């Protein structure tokens, strides 16, 4: 029997993923009427709709003047539980899944379905960038003592202690370029939503803006490789003690 060379993906009953995003950015602006029609089609699946506007603000300290430029205009659609989100806008199309994460297969199927719906209205649009981002929050029980971060994650800021006291708060970002992909890794302490816990965010973003896949087959094949890569990076960033938290 031939051995599958692809990495095995671990399943965690309590996956720490707070949000997963797949984001396509277009090379050219999409007409507002097209966005509107796509929104109306997608509304059958995502009944909650709000306008989606992103601004860019320019401040001139000399003249004390500021200018607002509308950068993105479109719609944010979500399901009744507010966990499945789609953005249809003049510069981008994105699907997002908030916790509880239901797994890659479900997420990919949603992308395929919603992208097909968008394309049935918009036709072919050249994609300038594909981004895949997974934000994890690891909730660590305090048990009445400070946390040794290295017990849980393997990517963090290290300072000599002493003379430095325990760290109150930290944030690190590393950027890597691998085979035409830009990988951005953010980690940092974040406020914990649980009483008696400390939380650390582990944010992995993998983007491609050169030789960007354009056909559906190319896109899906590319996304599978990104999935392998982000899982490998995630596993490399955590320890068995962290894994135990997601398996309880």
């Amino acid at each position, binding site marked *: 029997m031939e051995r599958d060379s692809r990495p095995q993906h671990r399943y965690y009953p309590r996956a720490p993923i707070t949000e997963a995003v797949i984001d396509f950015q277009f090379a050219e602006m999409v007409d507002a009427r097209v966005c509107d029609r796509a929104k109306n089609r997608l509304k059958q699946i995502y009944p909650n709709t709000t306008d989606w506007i992103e601004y860019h603000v320019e401040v001139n300290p000399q003249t004390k003047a500021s200018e607002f430029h509308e950068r993105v205009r479109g719609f944010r659609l979500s399901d009744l539980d507010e966990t499945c989100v789609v953005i249809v806008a003049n510069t981008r199309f994105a699907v997002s899944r908030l916790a509880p994460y239901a797994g890659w297969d479900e997420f990919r199927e949603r992308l395929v379905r919603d992208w097909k719906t968008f394309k049935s209205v918009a036709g072919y649009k050249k994609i300038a960038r594909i981004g895949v981002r997974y934000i994890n929050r690891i909730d660590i029980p305090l048990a009445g003592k400070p946390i040794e971060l290295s017990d849980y994650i393997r990517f963090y800021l290290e300072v000599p202690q002493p003379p430095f006291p325990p760290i109150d708060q930290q944030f690190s970002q590393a950027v890597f370029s691998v085979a035409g992909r830009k990988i951005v890794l953010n980690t940092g302490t974040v406020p914990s939503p649980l009483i008696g816990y400390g*939380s650390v965010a582990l944010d992995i973003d993998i983007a491609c803006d050169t030789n960007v896949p354009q056909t559906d087959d190319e896109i899906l094949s590319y996304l599978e490789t990104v999935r392998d890569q982000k899982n490998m990076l995630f596993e490399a960033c955590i320890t068995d003690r962290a894994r135990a938290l997601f398996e309880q």
Partner: protein
Amino acid sequence: MITEFHYHRRDKISALDPERPLFSGIYVPSRADSSTARDLSSTLEGMLRWADTTVLSRVGSGQPRVQTSKPLPERLYDALATVKVMTSKISMHLDRNWRSRLFRRLDELLNPEEWHEDDPILSASSFETYLRFVLLVRPTRDASLGVSNTGNLLAGWIDGRNRLTMELQPGDMVRWVLVRYVDDERETAAAQIGLTRLMQVLAPYQPECWLSLGD
């Protein structure tokens, strides 16, 4: 590497607010004049901007979600969306069926047809206290939900003649009142305390009869 997670710091900022950036607590250093200082500040600000603005659930139209000037159905929709997104942030710690039942009760609670124009809308910070209560205490029995005249979430449990009602207040505070029959004698009690002491204070009244505590 030792890291301390201070309670006071966590208490000041909401961890569940859907509009709040992921790393908003990070400090940008004091102003300095050298070009190196400017480069560092600019890099740090850029990192934070990137980390905080590219996530779909966090970026909005720049307007607060619950505005009093909006028509009632829209305000209710915004409140419902807000509390559902807040719940999603901790849903990896919740039983899926429990979460579904909670969402059904919230749909009923914030149904525009059951609401009067003058009624206060459910406060997100009160709902945050409820979520923290749930994660701390792990009640397995569902509460009846309501909204107080100040917009705080009310949660109530009935077990025969025994009743427990809580008003979940912003900032992990709870006001509760109970009626408990012991040997056919009626006892009542009420208090306003922080969440962390709640179960200690309720212990003499055997709160298991209302909350059915579990994992």
